[in-house]
């Protein structure tokens, strides 16, 4: 079982989500977070379930998919880079997960829950502003990318 002590600070400090946090705040965040291991084909989050945590990929490969209205599975993305993340919306706006995420190989993920972040914010009040701005930036870029995709569906 991988130990949290093996997670380097730069894993989080280089993430667009936590860019701008101090070294000690990053270390504290790693302390508060939970390391989780998944076997191949294991489900990490299920579409429709309540989500209140974000996940960062430390090792392995994961895929994101959703079901369309006829119940067919639609693949949305495949992630394999260390530091790739998903579920950050849960830190801003907890609600039902918009997709299912599954491990395509045995994988290790760092799970950061809303309450973990809140604990850190209580100890270090300036964290919230930095993280919220970063999350907004990430979401803005994702919305831009989505709008580009939507514009590719131009009707003639």
């Amino acid at each position, binding site marked *: 079982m991988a130990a949290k002590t093996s997670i380097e600070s730069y894993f989080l400090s280089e993430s667009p989500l936590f860019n701008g946090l101090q070294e000690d705040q990053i270390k504290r965040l790693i302390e508060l977070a939970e390391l989780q291991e998944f076997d191949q084909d294991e489900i990490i989050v299920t579409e429709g379930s309540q989500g209140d945590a974000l996940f960062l990929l430390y090792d392995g490969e994961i895929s994101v998919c959703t079901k369309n209205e006829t119940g067919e599975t*639609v693949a949305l993305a495949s992630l394999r880079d260390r530091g790739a993340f998903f579920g950050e919306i849960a830190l801003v*706006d907890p609600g039902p997960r*918009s997709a299912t995420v599954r491990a395509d190989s045995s994988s290790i993920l760092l799970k950061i829950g809303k309450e973990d972040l809140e604990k850190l914010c209580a100890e270090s009040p300036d964290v919230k502003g930095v993280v919220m701005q970063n999350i907004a930036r990430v*979401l*803005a870029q994702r919305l*831009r990318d*989505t709008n580009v995709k939507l514009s590719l569906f131009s009707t003639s």
Partner: protein
Amino acid sequence: MDSDIEILSISPLLIGLALEDVRALLDISELRTYNTDERIVEEGTPSDCLFILKEGKVQVEKGDGAQMVALATFSLAGDFFGEMSLIDIMPRSAHVRACAPTTIWAFPKKELTGYFTQSPRAQMTIILNIARNLSLRLRESGAHIVELTHAAQGK
């Protein structure tokens, strides 16, 4: 004046702001009017202000001519757009066009960030509102993409 404050204080962009912050933001805003079909925002241009709708109707669209795709419309007083100017420095990601005679408040980014140095609490509230709104729009447009993908596959 009072009805302006009313509209602004229930705008999803400004929800949760103290009244004094709403008043201060109204003071730094510019009122702009547009005729039907007039362009308010041009895709690709620098993103230097955000907007709240006072009255009228606007359409957010992307592309050119026959390739133009409608992304969203806003017609409720208090609806906002152009907020990404506060989040990053990318150019405008879409056009915005008035679909009816329209009046909007424009908040120049420079004045806003100046105000935020006096009221960090206002900044936090607005950023959170933007993040929540982006989450909502992502959920909706993600679903839209799945539908369109499905339709494009001819099923």
